[in-house]
Every structure is written in structure tokens, then in C-alpha cells.
């Protein structure tokens, strides 16, 4: 889109502004009524000061009742990015303009020209002219008192609409069309409401893709997803008449481009610190859960210091009951009047979490966001979202919880990390949850740079099943030969006999179906199914698996996390394969023994060789069990009996 730039002179000082709705600005500066209506609301909002100094001074003077002596609007609308840059350039040069011999209009022309040049626009001036704004004649409204009253009411309505827009957009980062969708019919003239709100410093308007500060103008960055020049794609744009960059990284969330408006709402105001003495008992946490939760609570309730570390790692083994542990933390934020965010990379996990959160906080407004969610524009005290949705937020939350932070696609995607960081209010703590934190986080935790708490034991207080390593040919070989090694077949049969549900993980989607057929044949078991990310019936099969209608489920890493089956054993074929790293192996192993009724599930890593991933996964699991024992979290069962049976079974 295009925008205008203009100059106003208030109290003898010139300032430059950008506008997407020039008539609103003219009313504000040159006439009586609009600024007067806004000042009442502005006091209520108490927010002016979010603007550059030069612009702020002028707006403050206007709100104090001084009308502009003069106003000049640049005739030609400029591509949005140019208009924003032009005002920036004016502010940079503000000191020199005041004393310079060239008039303010000539300096504005220079700014426009420089902005155009920086953007690489073709040379040759457009219409190099500005036109003055008329100051309303004294009798403009005075002709009839009725008309004057109507005009006053209209201006009050405009100010009120701007306030509503600013309130609704707090903490948001939305493209123009999204802002329009969110505001809906809240304002008759949405553009005008946005413009007035930005004039008053209640929100910010900028190009969605913009040059990086201090860099050459042509190197752009997406302000919504943080992607840099490498993800920019430039095309001729009919909206601004230029070659205009768009961001191909976040295209699926609506197109962010140089001349597209990004509306940034104001950040969430800071939260009172201090304990709310949340009652931990009511959440019925195990001792290990309670200990970790308490230290996390202390962290998030500590008074905010600008330089302090705002990240906390909650490293809880699979099946530790992470969700229950975040309830007290969310409650602490709600009690202090804040907004909490629980984000996770996977849509399935969001949908599964939704009813649990609503049950735990029946009185809170819960908003669940994912691609295709119906609550897209709603606002709640608790927001549950996929990490992709965080792109639409800007400093909105007083507590950010990232669950399963090592899962695809969040792990290793700088765009999603940027989005998560941006969604956090400056004072807000960020809580990272994982059973298998990436090596970098583990290192920072160990070296003391990252505050953290470990939950080394499951909520049922039994140790994690330790995987057994089984030497087998590759899955491809097994399928080719049409048979399984005796040891593996025996183990599978033992699992079935003891009444367990079997997860069988393979590396490739193409192996899922053949392996399911082979197992069904060899185990003489009809209730064998296969599923993968490409299976439209996945949810259905998982629920049938949960109901024991399916006994053996052959699958890929798609089910490595988030699925809880009460009595289950886990077989990982090609455990030496490259798609199964340490985290993945620990997660898959974590599907076994999750319920208190059957805490000792069995896990087998089957493969041709022992890889580092397998050995580290086993030692990570052993390590957690050891810590749990040392800290006295394990129930006193006979560990020797257990290992005796394991040895006996693995003979």
C-alpha cells in the first residue's frame, strides 16, 4: 500500500509524520475537537511516549491544546516503506533542519528523495509538490449549532474507535488484513482508527518487511517472522508500483511484504511481582513435581530486573506429568492479572492439551490457536497455541511456556524462535519444557547459565524402563526376507502374552504398511495396524490403539511424543538409523510404562550396531533413574527383583 508524509508546525517547531489516512491527521492538527476528544482517553490510557521524540513533542503540544499553525501534505503517496523511512530521515536530521536556511518543505523533499534513492527507485522525481492544509475557518462549525454538535460527536466517536482498536490490538503483530479482520465492525473506518491510534502512540504502524537498521537499504528483514534477506523474494508490485520484497518464510501465515502494513500493538504492562501464595496442594503433585514446580514458581514470581535471565528450563522425564506442573505457574500469572501462553510446535499436542487446560481453569478464558482455529481473533487469559501462531503476537504475554521445545518444527527453526521471543513481554519469563533438551540447553544448564529444575522421575514414582539393545538386521532386510530374528519374535510374543500394546517404530513411511503386514502374519495377530504422518486415519487408529482394539501399531517418529497408552511396550527397529537421534530414542522409549498400573514396560532398541545415539539414550535414562533414586523419589520396590526379571526375560 501507499502512505502519505506531511509536515506540521506546532508552537514554531516543524515535525514530519507518516499517515495512512490523511484526513484524520488534518482534523487532528488543524481543527478543534479530535485532539480534545483524544486527550481525555489518552489520560485514561496513559501511554503517550511510545513515539520518536520529535513526533512526540508535537503530539504532546497538540494534546495540550496548541493547534498547528501550518500543515503541508506531500502530494504524491509514497510506498509505505519510503514514507516510514522519510519520517525517520527527517527525525535524524531534525536538529540541523531547525537552523538551516532551507525551508522545511525543501528538507522534506530531500528526505523523500533520499528515501526513494535508498529504496533503489528509478530516478526522476515524481510530483515534487506539497499542498497546504486548510486551517478550519473559525465559523466552520459555527454556522449551525446542530451541525457543530454532530461534528463534535463524530470526532469523539473517532477517538473512541481508535482507543478500541488500540486495546484490541495490544500485544498483537498483525498484517493490515488481519487487523481489519480482528477489529471487524469495531470501527466504521478502520484505517482512520488505526491512524489516529498510531498518531497518539497507542500502537505502531510499519512496513511488514523493512530494511535492517544501520544496514544498506536493500537488505531486508521480515518484522513479523525475523527472516533475513535470504528468504526475501522481490517482485514487481501493483500495490506500490515498485520492485517490492516479500517474505517467503512466513508466507503460509499471510503475505508479509515491504509495502504491506504491519500493526504492532503496545506491549503488555508489567505485572506485580511477588508470591501469590498459590496453593500447590490442590494440584496433587508428586514430591518431585512439587519440588521442581516450587523452584519454577520462585523464578517466575521474582521481581523483574532488566538485565536478569528470563529463561528457565524444566527438564522433566517422559511421563513426569509436565502439564500438571505448569498449572500452578499459569495460576500465579492469572492471579496477578496477567496473560499466560502455552505454546508447542505440534498441533496434535495443542488439541490434546486444550480440554485439560479448560478443566484445570474452568473460570479462565482460554483461547486455542492453530492453523484453522476458530478462535483466531479472540483474546484470553490463557492462550494455547502452536509456535507458528506466535508470529501474530508482539510482547503480549506475561508468561511464555514452550512445551516440547525440541520437537519439529520448532527445534532448529530460527523463525519460530524469533516468534516465541517476540511474543513475550519484556518483563515476562520464558519457561522451556522438555524431556530431551537439545545439547546446547543441557550444556547451559550444567554450566549454571540457565536456571533449571529437573524432574528425574515419573509421577507414579517408578523408574523409567531401561531399553534393551537387540542385534537385528535392518528393517529393509527383515521385510525382504519376510521373517524376524528369533529373539525379537520371542520378545514380541512375550509382550503380547502379557497383554501389552506394542509400539513398533520404523524409520520410513514406506516401511510402515509392509512391516504391519509382516508382523500380523508372523505374530498370528490380526489387530496390527500401521500409521504415519500421511495417514488421514491417524487420530482414529491412535484412539483404537488406546482402546486395545489395535494391539500392535507400526509407526514412525510422528508418534514419538504426546501419545500415552497405559500398558505398552516399545520396539524400535533400525535404532541405529540416522533419523533416530538420542532425543528421538528417549522419547520413543518414553512411550513405555507410563501408567501406575503397569510402570515396567519394555523397550527394545533393535539394530545392526550400537550407535552413540543408542548408548547415550540408555545412559540418559539410567542417569535419570539414578538421580531419582538418590533424591529419594522412587517408591521402594525391590530393584533387584526387577532387574532379575529383566535379565530372565532377555536371556
Amino acid at each position, binding site marked *: 500500500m501507499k502512505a502519505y508524509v506531511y509536515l506540521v508546525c506546532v508552537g514554531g517547531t516543524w515535525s514530519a509524520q507518516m499517515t495512512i489516512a490523511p484526513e484524520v491527521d488534518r482534523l487532528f492538527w488543524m481543527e478543534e475537537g479530535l485532539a480534545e476528544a483524544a486527550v481525555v482517553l489518552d489520560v485514561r490510557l496513559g501511554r503517550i511516549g511510545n513515539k520518536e521524540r520529535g513526533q512526540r513533542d508535537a503530539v504532546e503540544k497538540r494534546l495540550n491544546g496548541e493547534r498547528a499553525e501550518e500543515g503541508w501534505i506531500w502530494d504524491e503517496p509514497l510506498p509505505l516503506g519510503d514514507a516510514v523511512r522519510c519520517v525517520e530521515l527527517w527525525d535524524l536530521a531534525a536538529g540541523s533542519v531547525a537552523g538551516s536556511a532551507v525551508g522545511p518543505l525543501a528538507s522534506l523533499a530531500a528526505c523523500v528523495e533520499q528515501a526513494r534513492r535508498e529504496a533503489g527507485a528509478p530516478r526522476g522525481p515524481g510530483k515534487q509538490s506539497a499542498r497546504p492544509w486548510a486551517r478550519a475557518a473559525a465559523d466552520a462549525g459555527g454556522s449551525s449549532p446542530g451541525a457543530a454538535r454532530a461534528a463534535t460527536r463524530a470526532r469523539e466517536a473517532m477517538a473512541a474507535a481508535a482507543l478500541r482498536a488500540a486495546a484490541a490490538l495490544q500485544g498483537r503483530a498483525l498484517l493490515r488484513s488481519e487487523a481489519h479482520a480482528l477489529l471487524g465492525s469495531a470501527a466504521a473506518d478502520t484505517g482512520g482508527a488505526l491512524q489516529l491510534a498510531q498518531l497518539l502512540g497507542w500502537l505502531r504502524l510499519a512496513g511488514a518487511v523493512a530494511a535492517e537498521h544501520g544496514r544498506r537499504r536493500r537488505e531486508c528483514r521480515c518484522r513479523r517472522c525475523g527472516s533475513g534477506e535470504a528468504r526475501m523474494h522481490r517482485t514487481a508490485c*501493483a500495490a506500490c508500483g515498485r520492485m517490492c520484497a*516479500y517474505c517467503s518464510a512466513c*508466507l503460509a501465515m499471510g503475505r508479509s511484504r515491504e509495502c504491506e502494513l504491519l500493526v504492532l500493538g503496545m506491549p503488555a504492562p508489567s505485572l506485580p511481582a511477588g508470591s501469590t501464595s498459590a496453593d500447590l496442594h490442590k494440584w496433587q503433585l508428586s514430591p518431585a513435581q512439587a519440588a521442581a514446580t516450587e523452584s519454577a514458581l520462585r523464578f517466575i514470581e521474582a521481581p523483574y530486573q532488566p538485565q536478569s535471565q528470563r529463561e528457565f528450563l524444566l527438564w522433566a522425564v517422559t511421563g513426569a506429568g509436565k502439564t500438571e506442573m505448569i498449572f500452578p505457574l499459569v495460576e500465579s500469572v492469572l492471579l496477578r492479572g496477567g496473560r499466560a501462553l502455552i505454546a508447542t510446535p505440534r498441533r496434535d499436542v495443542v488439541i490434546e492439551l486444550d480440554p485439560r487446560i479448560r478443566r484445570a481453569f474452568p473460570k479462565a478464558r482460554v483461547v486455542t490457536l492453530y492453523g484453522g482455529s476458530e478462535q483466531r481473533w479472540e483474546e484470553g487469559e490463557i492462550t494455547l497455541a502452536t509456535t507458528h501462531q506466535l508470529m501474530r503476537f508482539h510482547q503480549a504475554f506475561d508468561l511464555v511456556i514452550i512445551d516440547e521445545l525440541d520437537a519439529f518444527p520448532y527445534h532448529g527453526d530460527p523463525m519460530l524462535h524469533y516468534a516465541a521471543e517476540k511474543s513475550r513481554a519484556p518483563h515476562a519469563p520464558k519457561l522451556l519444557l522438555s524431556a530431551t533438551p537439545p545439547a546446547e540447553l543441557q550444556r547451559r544448564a550444567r554450566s549454571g547459565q540457565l536456571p533449571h529444575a529437573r524432574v528425574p522421575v515419573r509421577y507414579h514414582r517408578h523408574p523409567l524402563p531401561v531399553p534393551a539393545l537387540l542385534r537385528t538386521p535392518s528393517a529393509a532386510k527383515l521385510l525382504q526376507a519376510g521373517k524376524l530374528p528369533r529373539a525379537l519374535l520371542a520378545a514380541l510374543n512375550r509382550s503380547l502374552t502379557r497383554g501389552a500394546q506394542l509400539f513398533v517404530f520404523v524409520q520410513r513411511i514406506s516401511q510402515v504398511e509392509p512391516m504391519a503386514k509382516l508382523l500380523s502374519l508372523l505374530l498370528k495377530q490380526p489387530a496390527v495396524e500401521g500409521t504415519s504422518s500421511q495417514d488421514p486415519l491417524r487420530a482414529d487408529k491412535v484412539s483404537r490403539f488406546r482402546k486395545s482394539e489395535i494391539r500392535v501399531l507400526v509407526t514412525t517418529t510422528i508418534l514419538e511424543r504426546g501419545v500415552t497408552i497405559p500398558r505398552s511396550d516399545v520396539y524400535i527397529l533400525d535404532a541405529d538409523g540416522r533419523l533416530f537421534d538420542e532425543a528421538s530414542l528417549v522419547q520413543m522409549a518414553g512411550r513405555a510404562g507410563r501408567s501406575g498400573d503397569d510402570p515396567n514396560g519394555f523397550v527394545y532398541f533393535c539394530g545392526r550396531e550400537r550407535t*552413540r545415539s543408542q548408548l547415550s539414550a540408555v545412559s540418559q535414562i539410567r542417569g535419570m533413574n539414578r538421580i531419582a533414586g538418590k533424591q529419594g523419589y522412587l517408591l521402594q520396590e525391590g530393584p533387584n527383583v526387577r532387574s532379575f526379571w529383566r535379565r530372565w526375560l532377555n536371556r
Partner: protein
Amino acid sequence: MRSLLRQFFQRSTHDIHHALQWLSTSSSVCLFCGKESSKTFLSRASHSAGGLQAYLSYLPASFTQSLCSSCQAAIPWLTPIKCRICGRGITCPDCIRLQDASFIANRSAVQYSSEMREWLAQYKYRGNEKLELLLAQMMFPALAAITKEAVSRDSSPPLSNTSITPAIFWDALTFVPVSAERAEERGFNQAERFASILSRPHHIPLYDLLIRERHTEKQSFKTRAERMKDTRRLFQAKQETMNLLQANVNPSRPIRLLLIDDIYTTGSTIQACAAALHKQASKPLDIYALTWARS
């Protein structure tokens, strides 16, 4: 100690092996599905029918290389056709109803299947302009087909039937315009982009001949009758550009004009554009249409 070292060495060679595996896989990503495509492209020869093979030989090589084999297999090419007027794969009632058509015939590259709908939406509504070239290239075989059709209908003597290329035959390409609001919202006019991509390699001059008068609701929300009524008087030809075109063409025969659009549904848009062109032209025009999809 030695065994430890050996173990370490074994593990690291294992990792290197894996790293090499990663590096050796080709990293060409299919522009449509985003998946890494293997090097085994469906060669054009492996298509079943010989007719299709000949038809698809007009696709540029860069097209087949930017697409994975399963996406290529998903394209419902519109050949052979049954209706010589609108280019459908079935005999059609619309063309019987359509009387006094201002255009002679249409050809479309593909059937508007749900996959094709998704592809076009990716480009047109999501704004993934990286797909633009590929979508336009999909129209190359249909351009050959409509050229053949037009040649067979053409009555003017000087063309010998054997060596007629689109460059020799067509006098001009033009495209269905979008309204200013839509251009501002979308940032581009897909028909114009398609036309410009078709124009360059085939050496057919591109003329910006039409303007869209008023902004209508999106066509997809309307019935056939409503569309017909609505699109009348929607377009106007630009007199100056029309004069330029007429001055550039051999006056002894009608001007051969090919009109480009993305979707052909009832033909009302093409019809309205063609009517507007005839109205503004002082010479006879032979107007054909080439569209990306036939719905």
C-alpha cells in the same frame, strides 16, 4: 584405553558416514509440495499415451526439473478435448447455449481439479509468486494446441500449414485485466503475468488492451446467469493501444488476437472482453482464448 579409542573412532566414522549420506542426497525441493524430490523424474516418455507425450513435448525442460514426479503426475492435462469451442474434455452444453460468441475458441492447460485449485490458490491468493513461472509454463502445450486449432480455422491464404509457429501466427497477446482495488490487494494480475511469460519465449507481442470498469464481487460466488449479466459492460478496450495494434498488423486479413486468463468457467469473462475488443476495433478481429484451467 585402546578399546576406548577404537570405540570412539568407530563411532565417529559412523557419524561421518551419516553426514556423507546427508550431503549426497540431492537437495532439489519441489516448488509445489515443498518436499525434497529425488532425481528420478518422471520422464515425459513414461506417460502412457503417445498423444499426451507429443502434447507435453512443448513443456520447457526447466519445468520438469522444478517439480517432483508425484506432483507432475497429479496434473490433469486437458488433452484430448471434446468441445472444439471451449476446449473441454467432455461435450458441453455451455457452448451450445453461447450464441453469437465474440471469440472463436478457448483452450485450457488443465482441468480445474482440487489439486489445481490448491496450486492456483497458492499463487493467486497466498501470493507465492515463485510458482508463477511454472504455472505459466504449463500453458505452453495449450498454446501450441490453440495455435493449431486457429490455423485450421484460418481462411487467409498466405500461410503454409506446415511451419506455423505461434510467433508467425499470432499478431498479439492480451490479457483479462483486474480492477485497481484487486491489483492493490493482490499486488499483481495473474493473467497479465501469464501473458507476459508466454509472450517472451514465443515472440508474440504483448498488448495491454483492456481495462476493468468496476469492481465486482468475486465470480465464484455467483450463478451462471448472474455472471453473464454482471460481466456485460465490465470491460473496455483502450483506444490508443487498439490503434497501435491495428497499425502494426497487415490490413488484408483479420487481426489474430489471443486473450489470456487464469480460469475459464462459463466463458462469460472471455466473452465480455472479446465483445469490448470488437466494439473498439475498426478492423475485424479473430479472438481466441488461452486459459490456465477449465473448470
